[in-house]
């Protein structure tokens, strides 16, 4: 009986603690004297398979916020504010995003959103962002995130839509003999979207798509998929929006099978991840784009700041996002008030904006998507040469 009482007591105490506590998310570093705190919701995957992309966003958000605070904060409606990042890990799933959204936006009433990351996550809250009239900037790959009725959401990253045509133009100029394309990507919205976009862009450059394979998310052995891919005798393989580690393994497997053609990646790429998995020989000649020039001092400094926040490898996606968030916060400052409609006006009027890392930024997408909410800037075209990502040119991201 005593033993039971003891256990019950322990259980009750534990349960009460659990019930009383709630998960609290991390917050930013800088502090501004005499300022009130203004929370900014940051919803992004911090663990699991999306962590690389997720930290690109979360890191960019935190750094952009710190920069604003270091410069003295933001004054809205006569009150000085210090921004505070409220970060929640949505685990790269729509339900995680919904839960985070519910907590930060619905319950805590935060009006500014940086995120989400991921097409499915984005689509899950798209309507709510509009209904709740948020000040929202995020990264979602799917074209469906921006539609005619999108008003309050600005996409601050380039998707395959903006990148693929530029990459293909550069590629066919350099390698005119590659005529047959094989595409492989994950079996989800981002993968299918990426595949469709690269086929479209390639066709425009006279390259025929001879095979398209989709693999179930989460598998780690691509040999069978690669076999199917190679059966069509392609000259170039594009791994579109596959996570970089998957892409690396696919490339390594293909080379082991004697594939001597070229590799391309028209989706987000982290060259460090790919090299780590596949090694320099297999990845030689990989043709891809990055949001910034990794060798410039400004970007180097940014990477250093980023690496103070996390061990997760740096993904250049963060460069797009950082500049986009900087622009968004600048627009908020100009609006001088927390009114989302005023902010939208300012945001639209920000172009051309000099992004600290990327240079000139403009808006586009009116014809492509139905609403001018797509950030456009410069794209750095890279190729892996002797195990090193090397800039081979630049292009302009486009979305009429």
């Amino acid at each position: 009986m005593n033993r039971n009482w003891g256990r019950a007591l322990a259980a009750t105490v534990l349960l009460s603690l659990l019930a009383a506590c709630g998960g609290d998310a991390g917050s930013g570093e800088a502090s501004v004297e005499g300022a009130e705190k203004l929370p900014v919701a940051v919803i992004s995957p911090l663990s699991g398979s999306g962590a690389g992309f997720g930290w690109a966003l979360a890191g960019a958000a935190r750094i952009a916020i710190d920069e604003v605070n270091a410069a003295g904060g933001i004054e809205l409606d006569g009150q000085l504010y210090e921004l505070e990042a409220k970060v929640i890990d949505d685990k790269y799933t729509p339900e995680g995003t919904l839960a985070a959204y519910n907590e930060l936006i619905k319950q805590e009433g935060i009006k500014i959103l940086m995120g989400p990351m991921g097409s499915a996550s984005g689509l899950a809250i798209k309507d709510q962002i509009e209904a709740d009239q948020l000040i929202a900037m995020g990264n979602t790959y799917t074209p469906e995130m921006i539609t005619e009725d999108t008003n309050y959401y600005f996409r601050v990253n380039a998707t395959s839509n903006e990148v693929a045509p530029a990459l293909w133009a550069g590629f066919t100029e350099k390698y005119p003999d590659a005529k047959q394309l094989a595409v492989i990507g994950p079996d989800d919205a981002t993968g299918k979207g990426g595949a469709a976009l690269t086929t479209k862009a390639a066709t425009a450059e006279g390259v025929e798509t001879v095979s398209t394979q989709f693999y179930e998310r989460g598998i780690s052995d691509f040999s069978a998929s690669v076999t199917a891919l190679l059966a069509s005798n392609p000259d170039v393989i594009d791994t579109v929006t596959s996570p970089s580690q998957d892409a690396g393994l696919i490339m390594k497997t293909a080379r082991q099978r004697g594939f001597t053609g070229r590799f391309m990646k028209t989706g987000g790429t982290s060259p460090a991840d790919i090299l780590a998995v596949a090694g320099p020989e297999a990845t030689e000649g990989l043709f891809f784009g990055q949001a910034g020039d990794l060798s410039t001092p400004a970007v180097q400094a940014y990477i250093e700041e980023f690496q103070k926040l996390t061990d997760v490898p740096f993904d250049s996606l963060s460069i797009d996002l950082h500049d986009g968030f900087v622009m968004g916060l600048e627009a908020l400052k100009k609006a001088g008030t927390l009114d989302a409609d005023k902010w939208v006006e300012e945001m639209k009027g920000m172009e051309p904006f000099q992004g600290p890392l990327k240079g000139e930024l403009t808006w586009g997408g009116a014809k492509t998507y139905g609403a001018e909410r797509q950030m456009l800037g410069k794209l750095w075209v890279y190729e892996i040469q002797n195990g090193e990502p090397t800039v081979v040119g630049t292009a302009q991201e486009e979305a009429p």
Partner: protein
Amino acid sequence: MDVNVVIQTVISALTSSAIYILVALGFTLVFGVMRIVNFAHGAAYTAGAYGMFILGTKAGLPYVVSVIVTVVVVALAAALIEVALVERTASDGLKTMILTLGVGLMITGAIEVAFGASPVSVPPVVTGSLDIGPSVVPKDRVVVVICALVVLALLWAFLKYGKWGQALRAVSQDADMASAHGIRVKWVRAIGFGGAAGIAALAATLIAPVLFSTPYIGDDALAKSFMVVIIGGVGSVPGVVLAGLLVGFVESVTTVYWDSSIAGIVTFSVVIMVLLAAPNGLLGRSSARV
């Protein structure tokens, strides 16, 4: 029918089958000896892969050394867990299964917290390819298949002729009888549990240099073990081999000629069909055993 494609498909299939067979063997071993579904089996597999990462990639030890150390450590740890925790609930099958589930989650979770969710690689054992007919076949996969065959042969010999192997089989057939013959059933359980974990870890060490590893590979390994054991029949080693080959080939062929998401559906459907048509699996023993 492109010969090259066929050869590549066969090699993919054999590689996968080899791993599935080894992992499923461990799984069925525990079931035979302890009559429980060992939910920690996947975690043993993951531990094997990460053991290789720690020793091979981080510490830079030679491959064979890493394999031996990893397998021994995992097996011993598992045996220890069995004695310390599992034995306490051994009288209640359901409790034990849930306990193993908990242990598995703890290990997998700990690996994720320690190493993160991003994939890790293990240095390759062999590089390069060899030509088999019109095909260029990666050497590392061939090595996996050969090693798996060797291990399988050794295991078979152990079970048939080894002292503890025979004890394992005796306990599987009838624990009371075995006890009456002087076999220390508790020891056998510990060895069975530890051995199974060791085999799973070994399978992981073989394939880790070929693919990359995440904390979640154990889930897949566990799911495959389930399937192979149902199809092959619980407690039957030839059944596991046959079913492992079946699953590996079905996956490979459907992916190459159709697409990969269909592969999963087909395999699970086969599982269900086998269970309905042949509840003891293809080569399972009679109901008295199960």
